[in-house]
């Protein structure tokens, strides 16, 4: 069986319970930015929550993107290393360049209701096999020619999912085309 190429997505949620410094900074700064940007979608301060704006104001879904500017500086500080997710040896090994910032809930008058998520998309991985609750993967970039391939066992867990998949068939088709 030929290996499939996948990318993993980790949805990191930050809310009032955020404890780590990075999480707290993202949570606080995204809230401050939300309060600035929300005024574009809140004539006469009619609405209080992000949910209301989404429901009543056309274009309010652009707030996800507009608020993300408060967060990109912190993403850069991660140095392309995906946080929190480690392999079965307890090492963080996933790299990322792509992300999507997401406002989940927010409230202009109550920061404790502010909830955001950063969706990290990993660099491509070869998915060799599945062992119990673990995916056996190796970074595509590190693929050796014919010899030994160093691998990682990633446990399946909440908020970690397969974001995209490239099967060998489409690979071959793309090459043929």
């Amino acid at each position: 069986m030929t290996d499939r190429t996948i990318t993993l997505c980790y949805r990191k949620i930050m809310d009032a319970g955020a404890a780590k410094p990075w999480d707290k900074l993202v949570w606080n700064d995204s809230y401050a930015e939300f309060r600035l940007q929300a005024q574009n979608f809140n004539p006469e301060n009619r609405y209080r929550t992000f949910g209301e704006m989404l429901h009543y104001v056309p274009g309010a879904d652009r707030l996800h993107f507009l608020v993300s500017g408060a967060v990109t500086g912190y993403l850069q500080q991660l140095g392309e290393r995906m946080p929190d997710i480690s392999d079965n040896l307890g090492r963080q090994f996933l790299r990322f360049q792509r992300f999507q910032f997401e406002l989940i809930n927010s409230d202009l008058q109550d920061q404790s209701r502010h909830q955001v998520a950063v969706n990290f998309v990993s660099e491509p991985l070869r998915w060799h096999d599945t062992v119990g609750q673990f995916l056996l993967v190796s970074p595509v970039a590190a693929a050796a020619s014919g010899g030994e391939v160093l691998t990682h066992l990633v446990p399946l867990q909440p908020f970690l999912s397969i974001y995209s998949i490239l099967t060998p068939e489409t690979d071959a088709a793309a090459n043929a085309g």
Partner: protein
Amino acid sequence: MERKHFLKSLLLGAASTPVLLSACSKETVSPTSGTSSGSGTTTGGTSSGSGSCTVAPTETEGPFPTKTPASYLRSDITDGKIGYGLTINITVSNSNASCAALAGALVDIWHCDAEGNYSEYGGTGMQATNYQSVHFLRGRQVTDANGKVTFKSIFPGWYSGRATHIHVHVYSATGTSLKVTQIAFPEGTGTAVAAVNGYAKGLSGYTANAQDNVFSDGVALELATVTGSTSAGFELTWALSVPA
């Protein structure tokens, strides 16, 4: 269509008098005492407590995050976009204080690239984007004691239905929206708009200020002074008054 709609909604926001978010200034809940959902923040590293245990990371500590201003807070908003250089000077005064210079105000600007595209329309889909390539040609500065901010950018291109323009949103030091408006460019023979000539597109189908749905009601207060040349770059100067 959507863009027009959005522009209209911005104008609507500008027309209505901004009301202080009085309740916002009081922070009622500190981060630590808030309600924690407990479900989202403990994935991965620490034990998730959901039956299947994952190994806790045993690793060198780090990274060490430092407080970072929003990536908007910068004076060079070029982001590698190609075009004729444009220095943007904006001076803000307070119409509630005999037009005295307004210091400490946040001035947020954004405009399209040479082809007429905005960064904000690239990031609305479901696709994840590279963290190094979003938010081009958008920036924010705090006015100095003279009420002035300066940005380095490129001369904006144009897109169907609109004259050349730069969006401006002015906030008070505490973040209250004071004004949403747009900067218009002089047009016709000898102007910068004519010299840039719409970049690769040319000016065929260009919307003049008089036909523009935003500027057609009179452009006097929105019109900037633009000097310079394609070789030396352009310099834009514009002043506005806001009720602060």
